[in-house]
């Protein structure tokens, strides 16, 4: 056997290169065909970012007294926008449906979300592309977004909303505008956005009439004048330099901050932005709360956190870290039927299976959620879909209450960081919560304090 023949002898197990695994090879070959970046929907694919799963609750045993888990009352009422608005938003539970555009989503999907939100006493949010009339008819509490593109923006619709959200960015792609590929720019969507039918719509990231934080202050003032100071003004930001951004948004006059971590979903994005920009939800919330604390604005400015919130436990942990509410997008779509094992032949046409689909950008959503195809849209029955989302919201609420009661709290908002322990050193460092099994953290300020105490103790002994 010559040296050049040795790999043909069948002596080796197939081994994937860690430098060039199959997905990287596929990606390079795909880009060699596309001549551009790879676009996908849904969410990020990278592994290993710290998450809320890296925390655990430490419920009552002897040192604390729990509430009866299935019986005693546990409040969930949530008020957002108490800083300047005449009419803050009152939610029945600390959950909101995130901004998802009519265009990215079908009218049926928006309508079902609106119906479920109304039953649950929570808000929905418009999205890039303006208000979906069907959704507005369903929901009592609507947050109207002011986005850089101003697609479909209508001041009359804004005046009907219960809150206005100035979108500075989103977690899936902070620093970059929205994306709606031509397959989804149907006649209806094109008319709503004043665009040519079938155009690959790449939204701007900068607002047309303001740029920096000082400008944002003026923009917020204008929105307050336009709405007669009645409704709260939220500012939504993709999680990036969160501490600085939070301080600037508070100074600019926001009532509510919506912080969207890098796990945040999307209808379409270059995958490199999904996987390689922004910071995780856990980190963003921790940074945001410390920044608010620095400004002594906790309680004055409310925080809504989003990005990968998948159940009531995530929500409870977010509340314990200081958030006032969570916002769900992808989880709500999954409750609608996203990635459900139905119409499997249509998943196959997209080259995927249920559970793996991220082809929201193609308008070929097999279950009728992220499509503008009238036939596919019909697959989402609004009544049943709304029931599913409502049931999911109920489950989230019950899970939140379960955690709160176990921790001895009769209001989910009373959950606090002290009710948790970190399961990883990373999570401990990020949140300042002790690693389970220890009573200390390794954050610089805590180390400094421990050293100072030790020195002080040593000095005391010396005397």
């Amino acid at each position, binding site marked *: 056997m010559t040296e050049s023949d040795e790999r043909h002898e069948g002596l080796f197990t197939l081994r994937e290169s860690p430098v060039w695994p199959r997905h990287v090879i596929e990606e390079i070959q795909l880009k060699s065909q596309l001549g551009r970046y790879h676009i996908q929907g849904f969410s990020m694919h990278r592994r290993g970012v710290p998450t809320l799963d890296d925390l655990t609750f430490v419920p009552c045993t002897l040192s604390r007294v729990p509430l009866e888990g299935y019986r005693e009352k546990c409040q969930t009422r949530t008020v957002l926008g108490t800083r300047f608005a005449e009419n803050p938003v009152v939610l029945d539970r600390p959950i909101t449906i995130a901004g998802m555009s009519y265009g990215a989503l079908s009218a049926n999907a928006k309508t079902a979300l609106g119906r479920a939100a109304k039953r649950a006493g929570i808000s929905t949010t418009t999205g890039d592309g303006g208000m979906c009339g069907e959704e507005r008819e369903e929901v009592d509490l609507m947050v109207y977004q002011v986005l850089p593109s*101003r697609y479909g923006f209508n001041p009359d619709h804004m*005046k009907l909303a219960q809150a206005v959200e100035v979108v500075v960015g989103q977690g899936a792609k902070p620093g970059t505008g929205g994306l709606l590929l*031509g397959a989804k720019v149907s006649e209806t969507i094109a008319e709503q956005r004043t665009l040519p039918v079938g*155009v690959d719509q790449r939204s701007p990231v900068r607002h*047309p*009439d303001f740029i920096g934080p000082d400008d944002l202050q003026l923009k917020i*003032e204008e929105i307050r004048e336009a709405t*007669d100071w009645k409704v709260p003004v939220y500012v939504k930001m993709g999680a990036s330099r969160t501490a600085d951004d939070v301080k600037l948004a508070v100074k600019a006059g926001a009532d509510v901050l919506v912080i969207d971590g890098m796990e945040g979903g999307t209808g379409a994005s270059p995958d490199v932005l999904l996987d390689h920009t922004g910071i995780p939800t856990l980190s963003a919330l921790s940074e945001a709360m410390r920044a608010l604390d620095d400004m002594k604005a906790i309680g004055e400015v409310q925080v809504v956190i989003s990005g990968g919130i998948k159940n009531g436990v995530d929500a409870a942990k977010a509340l314990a870290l200081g958030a006032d509410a969570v916002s769900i997008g992808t989880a709500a779509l999954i409750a609608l039927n996203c990635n459900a094992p139905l119409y499997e032949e249509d998943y196959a046409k997209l080259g995927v299976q249920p559970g793996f689909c991220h082809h929201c950008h193609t308008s070929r959503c097999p279950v009728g959620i992220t499509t503008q195809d009238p036939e596919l849209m019909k697959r989402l029955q609004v009544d049943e879909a709304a029931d599913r989302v409502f049931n999911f919201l109920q489950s989230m609420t019950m899970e939140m209450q379960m955690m709160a009661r176990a921790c001895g709290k009769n209001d989910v908002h009373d959950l606090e960081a002290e009710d948790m322990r970190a399961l990883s050193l990373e999570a401990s460092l990020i949140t300042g919560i002790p690693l389970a099994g220890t009573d200390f953290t390794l954050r610089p300020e805590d180390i400094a304090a421990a050293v100072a105490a030790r020195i002080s103790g040593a000095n005391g002994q010396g005397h």
Partner: protein
Amino acid sequence: MVAEMTAVTVEAQDLETREVNRAIKRSIADGAKEIHVLHPAGRHSFAVALRADDVKVVFEGPTGWYTAGMNFGPHVVIEGNTGWGVGECMMGGRIEVLGHAGSGTAASIRGGLVYVQGDTGARAGIAMKGGALVVGGDSGYMTGFMMQRGTIVICGDAADGIGDSMYEGTIYVGGSIASRGADAEIEEVTDEDRVLLKQMLGDVGIDENVDGFTKIVSGRKLWNFSTKEPELWKSAL
């Protein structure tokens, strides 16, 4: 029965912006047809989100940012300069700036007319979705950026990047053009265009020979991605 009010004066000097806007809205509700705001002093967010036809609001002096933004119907006159975003997201109506205007003039308007007698800053007519912008003087960097529909007329010179990434709509420039933006192309001016220009300029009191105007439209190469235009897409994105 309330007697019909025709003209009202609001002295802004000692009022908060909120009070000025409420006075304007109250006057409109009471039937005023012409409202004069004295001493606006360059302050921001005056006369925003008004919904009223046949009403004229006159600012007797310069105003700040977002004057007459998000309006639907009224005729607003600014007797002086104005700041960024004048008329932004206007749905309909008429705005006349008898001076210069800052950046983002007529940003994302969907209807109506914004007329600036003097010059405009950067990104005038950005993301316009309809309506018309007429600039008597020069316009700044990236005028008509990502314009979607409507008409922009610049009587003077246009700075760099005019019409960059415009989807649709038409831009006419009477003076020189420093440079066109990505996918902004020159198209021949037709007799129909000249009639339209005459009519639009005449509407704001400008009597000018329109023979020398240049017409800019979208080349439509950025509508859908193509590997055949690598340089264009590299610079556009």
